[in-house]
């Protein structure tokens, strides 16, 4: 009964109106961002399939070449006029982002079998990723080359079959193999699907770590500084109930927040990734390659996530007990933030397991890393790494929990502070402490 009273009180404190309002606002912002990105993706798609060309040569050959390009159905060819060589002014005055200019003398160069020159000008108006995606110079060049070839072939006496062969001499059939499974799909496509989906896990993990740590540290340090902890611990309730109620409520609220943010992030990602794979169903590709997760796999990933939360909560109890004022309580969260940021960034950019030994072992020594890579381990069937990570996390959890409980169950919860005490000798284990009040 007393535990439920404590748990209700902790949940009510941690799940305040402000916290709930912030969660809803965040989800609203993420959905809005998703819609904005979805529109940006559509615009990018449109831009990427349009080629803007200015024909200054205006010969029968270039006209024919542009007609052939228009008939290719690969791109929308937009013919424009550029009157000067001041591309900055020309692009600024127009609404297009880039232009391919076929200069005077182009046909002559082609007919003389010389390397023909074309000009490509691109306008950059921002460093935002989506704002600069458009038909690049490489695509423009490929299109023109195709156009030139087709025009030359059409003028030649080659038969249709030969022309077709010259235009498309090779057809690439690409396969991707994962463990013992394969599918006819480009590895770059699989990689892009996986990246867009795997992006969510580190973000959720990072949010979970930060929220649960912030909540338990706030709960401990506020109670200690307001002396409500003294009131509570002198009441007929066990210290274990007090600390368990705090830890459980922090875990519940952190999980709830993660779920809400995951929903919001998912909505946002749908906006970005929607329609990226056109020719084959995403789910089917992942299923054929064994890259989907079963219920058991989800449980394994969840178990490692829960282990990380428990470690975070234990460390946060120790740090919260060290706080001597509200400001130091915030500063003391820094070590946890750094420990979460390392695996967050490292796992985002490299494969930790194949990284250099220094990076690999340093990153793997951080207990949170194993939860960041849990889904990869499970999906690719690397259960050895998964279970070694889980065992390592369990050992660390026992150590952290032992230290946290040792502090909470002893005098140290009242006497320990960091940086504000009278004496600095001794540590958490010895009889000496960092400081004490001796009224």
């Amino acid at each position, binding site marked *: *009964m*007393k535990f439920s*009273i*404590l748990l209700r*009180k902790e949940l*009510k*404190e941690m799940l*305040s109106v402000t916290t709930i309002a912030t969660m809803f606002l965040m989800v609203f912002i993420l959905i809005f961002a998703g819609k904005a990105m979805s529109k940006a993706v559509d615009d990018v798609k449109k831009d990427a399939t349009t080629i803007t060309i200015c024909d200054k040569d205006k010969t029968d050959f270039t006209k024919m070449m542009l007609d052939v390009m228009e008939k290719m159905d690969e791109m929308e060819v937009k013919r424009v006029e550029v009157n000067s060589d001041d591309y900055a002014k020309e692009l600024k005055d127009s609404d297009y982002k880039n232009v391919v200019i076929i200069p005077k003398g182009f046909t002559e160069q082609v007919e003389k079998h010389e390397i023909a020159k074309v000009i490509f000008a691109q306008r950059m108006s921002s460093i935002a990723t989506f704002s600069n995606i458009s038909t690049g110079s490489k695509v423009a060049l490929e299109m023109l080359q195709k156009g030139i070839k087709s025009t030359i072939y059409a003028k030649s006496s080659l038969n249709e079959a030969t022309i077709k062969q010259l235009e498309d001499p090779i057809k690439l059939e690409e396969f991707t193999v994962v463990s013992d499974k394969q599918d006819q799909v480009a590895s770059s496509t699989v990689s892009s699907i996986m990246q867009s989906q795997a992006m969510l896990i580190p973000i959720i993990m990072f949010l979970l770590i930060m929220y649960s740590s912030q909540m338990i540290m706030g709960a401990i340090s506020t109670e200690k500084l*307001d*002396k*409500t902890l*003294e*009131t*509570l*611990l*002198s*009441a*007929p*309730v*066990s210290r274990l109930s007090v600390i368990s109620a705090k830890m459980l409520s922090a875990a519940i609220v952190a999980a709830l927040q993660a779920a809400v943010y995951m929903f919001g992030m998912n909505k946002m990602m749908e906006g970005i990734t929607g329609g990226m794979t056109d020719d084959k169903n995403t789910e089917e590709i992942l299923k054929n390659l064994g890259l989907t997760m079963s219920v058991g796999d989800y449980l394994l990933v969840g178990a490692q996530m829960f282990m990380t939360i428990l470690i975070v909560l234990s460390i946060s109890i120790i740090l919260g007990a060290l706080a001597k004022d509200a400001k130091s309580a915030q500063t003391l969260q820094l070590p946890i933030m750094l420990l979460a940021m390392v695996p967050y960034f490292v796992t985002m950019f490299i494969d930790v397991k194949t990284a250099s030994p220094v990076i690999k072992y340093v990153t793997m020594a951080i207990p949170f890393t194993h939860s960041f890579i849990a889904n990869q381990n499970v999906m690719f069937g690397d259960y050895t790494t998964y279970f070694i990570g889980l065992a390592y996390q369990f050992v660390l959890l026992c150590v952290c929990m032992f230290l946290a409980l040792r502090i909470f169950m*002893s*005098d140290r919860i*009242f*006497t320990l502070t960091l940086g504000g005490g009278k*004496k600095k000798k*001794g540590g958490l284990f010895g*009889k*000496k*402490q960092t400081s*004490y*009040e*001796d*009224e």
Partner: protein
Amino acid sequence: MEVVLDVKGLSKQYKKGVYASENVTFQVNKGEIFALIGPNGAGKTTTIRMISTLLKATEGDAVVDGHSIITEPEKVRECITYLPDEAGAYKTMKGVEYLRFMAGIYAKSKSDIEEFVKRGSEISELGDRLNDKISNYSRGMQRRLLLARAIMSKPALAILDEPTSGLDIINALEIRRMIKKLAAEGMSFLLSSHNMLEIEYVSDRVGIISKGHLLEVGSAPELVEKYGVKNLEEVFEKVVTVR
């Protein structure tokens, strides 16, 4: 006379040779107001925290209502309430919610909870303001609420550390009157304060503590007569200077 608190040679050593409180011995009888007086850093709070089972005693023992703080701390916590110096309450709660939460911790049945909350509401004299968030309370209102919390469960021993510190004269007077009234009804109090005049007015007996040692115990008039001075402040000065 029935002894509610029996402190026997209680000591707290933080590091070798440094005692925050050493060999402290005194008793508190039923319905008595006993005050520990001394300057800041004298060892009052450490002694009180040991009796409240918050800190573990290095040596000695204290028996509260028949239960040892060393061997039966859980039983001791059922007999006492503790109001720390400058304590706060949960700011997100309303006054009545705080009383209900603490009542839930002390109560043995649901009917106890209602009874404690009713008594706490009456003692606090906060009326409709009990439905306001504690964050909107003045310091005096918050202290009254905390005192009501400490008393509503009718503990055998209420331990109040600097009960009137930081309060204005009117609020301090009200709290002193309340303590005297409840003591007359049979509740025992262990107070701590460095305000000698307040203690002289409110307490039945005082213990003078300095540098961790309990130097003198007796009623204020007895001590004033013994040292041939005018008030408790002068007694304290003499006791501390002589020792």
